[in-house]
């Protein structure tokens, strides 16, 4: 199977994402001007500051040519995984519900913390157990997840809240401590923490690899 990792002007985590993907499958970078996805089975929208975060984080990136291809891919059931700025881009593109606002404390939060797997029955989390805690770094300025209350209720009922921040960590003000969500169909996910920075024992945790491994297995199963 093959991962495609998008590089926008201003991306900064695409190389780590690429290296994380390569542990579990083939991986190739996609340029923001590309109009096709080079045969990728899974598209990763990485972290960083695409287009300088001008206007709002993710607001400009959603209009790039590659995002048109990603929207079509997602509409056809393709697996799309947005990390941090990638999560913001997918929300702005309407591929995920909600929006990400500046952190409640107006501080850039950068530290290792735990997230709890709320739904292990998704293509992104099948190698995890429900209730499992994953130690993954987070580093962001605008990670306060927001969606209207009734929409959050519907998302919770539909199993779309996949990851929540474990109690006791630094708080970015996210509604219901949400760290990661999927779309209604369950084939597009976004999360604020950075699993691509938690794949090597050298950096203290390999928990993030579970998400990439889940995706690789899912894509391989679909292809078989």
């Amino acid at each position, binding site marked *: 199977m093959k991962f495609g990792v998008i590089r926008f002007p201003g991306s900064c985590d695409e190389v780590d994402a690429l290296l994380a993907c390569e542990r579990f499958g083939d991986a190739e970078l996609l340029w923001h001007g590309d109009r096709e996805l080079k045969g990728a089975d899974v598209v990763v929208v990485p972290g960083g500051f695409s287009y300088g975060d001008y206007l709002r984080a993710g607001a400009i990136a959603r209009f790039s040519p590659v995002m048109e291809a990603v929207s079509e891919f997602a509409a056809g059931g393709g697996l799309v995984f947005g990390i941090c700025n990638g999560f913001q881009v997918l929300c702005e593109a309407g591929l995920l519900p909600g*929006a990400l*606002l500046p952190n*409640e404390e107006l501080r850039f939060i950068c530290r290792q913390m735990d997230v709890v797997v709320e739904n292990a029955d998704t293509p992104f989390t099948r190698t995890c157990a429900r209730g499992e805690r994953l130690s993954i770094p987070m580093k962001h300025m605008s990670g306060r997840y927001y969606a209207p209350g009734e929409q959050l209720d519907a998302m919770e009922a539909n199993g779309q809240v996949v990851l929540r921040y474990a109690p006791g960590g630094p708080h970015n003000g996210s509604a219901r401590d949400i760290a990661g969500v999927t779309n209604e169909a369950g084939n597009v996910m976004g999360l604020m923490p950075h699993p691509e920075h938690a794949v090597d024992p050298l950096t203290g945790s390999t928990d993030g690899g579970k998400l990439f491994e889940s995706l690789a297995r899912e894509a391989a199963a679909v292809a078989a």
Partner: protein
Amino acid sequence: MGSQVGGEALVRARVLIRPKEGILDPQGQAVERALPALGFQGVSHVHVGRMVELDVEDASQLDQMCEQLLSNPLIEDYEIVESA
């Protein structure tokens, strides 16, 4: 309203974008706390947004521009102020 050849009929517009009512605005709160510290009393309901200034040939498109790019309607309200 309509555009004219030569760009003579440009409309100067200002789009004011602010956080939607009911959504936490920590920037506004920080400013609201800072003002009394400087001796300014009686200030409330401070909100910090942004302003986009633009010349447009067809002002009837401004709403669409706001809906699709300039604001995120889920979290922000916008107001269009036109001048000649």
